[in-house]
């Protein structure tokens, strides 16, 4: 591959080294090179939030970060956080409140919501609504998502 750069990332706890085209976005790398298709591509311009993944503990838009920028970084995706059970309370809340319909935005919505959970505080509905405003859901009307997140970290 011309101009490819070697990068080493720790993805869901596993170290991977690949030669990566500089223009490849992180979410494309995760999906196409590693087969981790749970992070979705909704707009490719950083608006919809469907590609949200965690890099070094912070959530980022996987479509706005180049894969080579993640060299040396720890990357967590929906697959890893599901297997580690980190998301299990939120996933249970989402299931019980029907906080998803088509499921396309759901992995990223969970990743975003988990940011609040990790703060180990309680949040109001309004605060939850504002926090997830960077993640579009076209199916639910958001209320069930807010209900589900509130069931885990609500005041």
């Amino acid at each position: 591959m011309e101009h490819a750069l070697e990068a080493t990332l720790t993805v869901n706890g596993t170290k991977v080294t690949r030669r990566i085209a500089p223009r490849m976005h992180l979410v494309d790398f995760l999906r196409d090179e590693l087969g981790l298709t749970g992070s979705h591509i909704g707009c490719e311009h950083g608006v919809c939030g469907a590609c949200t993944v965690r890099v070094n503990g912070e959530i980022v838009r996987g479509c706005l970060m180049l894969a080579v920028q993640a060299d040396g970084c720890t990357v967590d995706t929906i697959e890893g956080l599901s297997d580690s059970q980190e998301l299990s309370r939120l996933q249970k809340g989402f299931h019980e409140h029907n906080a998803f319909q088509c499921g396309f935005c759901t992995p990223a919505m969970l990743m975003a919501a988990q940011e609040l959970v990790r703060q180990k505080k309680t949040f109001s509905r309004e605060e939850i609504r504002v926090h997830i405003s960077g993640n579009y859901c076209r199916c639910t009307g958001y209320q069930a998502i807010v209900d589900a997140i509130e069931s885990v970290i609500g005041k």
Partner: protein
Amino acid sequence: MKAELPLHAPGTQLDKGYIGQSVPRPNTQRLLQGRGTFIDDLRFPRLAHVAFFRSPYAHARIRKLDFSNAIKSPGVLAVFDGPKVAEYCKPWVAVLAHLKGIKSPPQYTIAIGRACWQGEAVAAVVAESRSQAEDAVALIEADWYELPVVVDMEASLRGDYVIHEEFTDNVCFKREHDTGGVDEAFAQADAVVEDTFHFGRHTGVCLEGRAILADYNAAEHSLTVYHATQAPHMMQDIFSRHLDIPEANVRVIAKDVGGSFGIKVHVYADEMATAAISVIMRRPVKFVADRLESFLSDIHCREHRVRIKIAVKKSGEILAFDLDDLTAIGPYSVYPRTSGIEGNQVVNLTGGPYKHQKYRAKMHCVFTNKNVTCQYRAVGHPIAVALTEGIVDLAAQKIGMDPAEFRRVNLIADDAYPYTFPSGIKFEKLSHHQTLDLLLKKMDYQGLREEQKSLRAKGVYRGIGLAAMIEVTNPSPAFYGVGGARISAQDGATLRLEPTGMVTVMCSVTEQGQGTEAIFAQIAASAVGVTLDKIKVITGDTGVTPYGGGTWASRGAGIGGEAVLQAGRALRANMLDVASRILNLEKNEIDILNNEVVNKLTLESKMPLAELGRVAYFRPDTLPIDFQAELTVTRHYTPRQYGFTFTNGIQGSLVEVDPDTGFVKLLKHWCVEDSGTVINPMLVDEQIRGGVVQGIGAALYEECIYGPDGQLLNGNMADYLVPMSGEMPDIVCAHVETPTKQSQLGAKGVGEAGTAGAPGAIMNAVNDALLPLNARVTAMPFTPERILKALKKV
């Protein structure tokens, strides 16, 4: 009367099983864990990727296409123009016989000779990766000759320039309806009010773009299409006929679909091209629309200008409506449903909740050089509801009557059914007055009015808006089939008892997140007598399920659900046949409950279903020699007694308008809906809420804005606004249940009601807030700019 669902022992209480229970959706853990399978998640050997070169002009002749640089680009496998793909895929003309006079020119997969909207595909590049295909698209050179552009629908109707040379005007379809006596009614009126409403063009914005992976097997002359579609059998028929592959050799599989809302129920030229290219190249080919091409090529909707006039008496009685609708659909009627349906629905449905007898409507549907429009969630309803409710509020204001009271005076009485509406449509049984009463109670309407008054004194401008509605659901063959479209109005369900006592359900209605699989599981479990964990539902595969129409027009529960119910009852009867032979008991002595064969009177367990399955499948030698167990059954259902099942409901909106900024703050929203039997209240409520929020998008944010040259000016996610969680209010849902008697299940459908009513309710609330400021808005979306203009502040 409610439909009687599995009635177990005589004398015991009516057992509805899981019907009416808010159970979480089974079969969905994969979506929560990132293990769903959307089209773009599929991995195939030899998969090729297609990207399209799209017209940068709204209307232009293609003088020359030069692929010489594109074909040399790394990874490129082939480049195709329109004539090449047309050798493999026949064009289509989207007309229906019952829409008299509708016309449209032939449409090809890839434009030949001329592009008619900005974004129409004019060449396809196939490469080893999508990025390589996109690189090569940028290397295609085209020589264009720009043609006159028609973007304004009034100009299109005038016919200043005719877009298609085979026609003498730009009218795709027109309809007039007149009960007679309208002029006389207006002459007798105490008050006449008139207004013109504009509805912006918007689109679905499914979070998953349109997606297709076509896999042609040359050895078998067979085509397997993984398709983000709502209607797999319709697409099977279309791939078969247009690509000339026998129907049985075409299999359409819809796995997880990332939102549809009507966007994914149409034939798209670029998707047909992808299938044709798979045939040409004899290998799997994938196309996933990226967000920018979604805005340019997913169907758009609405774009209506409607003049409406209402005649009323001082008592509030409505005497007549008179309307003139003009709607623009882009350069082609969309295949196979046509683009005439939305305007047709405006004529059918306007004034729908009310008991006036005189009605006149005129509708023109015209071609323009913008992207095509077609049926999107609630087709025509948001227009019909908003203009009805908008003019009703204006009439109430003119005669000095409270809007809620005005509606009470005019809503069709709850005991007046069956009822034929002046447009000719028939209602089986609606409950407008019950829903109005419940809404006003839920809202505390009087309390809100008082609060509104006291806040106005403090310079806070709150508005309360109501919108009564009717919604078409469960269409009979009268919707499409009679017009010649090969779109199934019936659906089927197959239920199979597995040897362990589990039940597999295969249904032709598809799942895009509404929860159809969940409600089919609930219905099947209830009908057979097993627990929910014993049910596995499979949908979205023409190679597996019975034949059917799929998911559209709020038909999944009402039609697919009834097929599942009938199949479940038949399976239970067959299971009892087997059990009676094994147990040597009369069939009428036993029943099935909680995965067991039980004594019907004592409910004492006689045998687990796993034992029934074991004997029936592995030891049928122990059964009488003249007896054969039939533990797979299929049943179908077609609604026939009425053209459509109708639901009814009413929505209420509370907003606050900031007269300095023009911003509308949504404080709360209510929806009371009668969708017949409610199978899963939690799913129904979130369907309604999702629909309401899409309606809020139409009312306040969403518009595909075109420049005078036919260029889409805001075709990206940053500039085209959709509702976000921070702006949305909590939405209160409540239900009246009037089951339809056409089916045993009694479900009427609910998928579109929220979208149908919300824009009208919001519009009335905004105008109610603006009333003391002598301002009024009638052009959706109600952006801050439009509100400030109405306030004469900009």
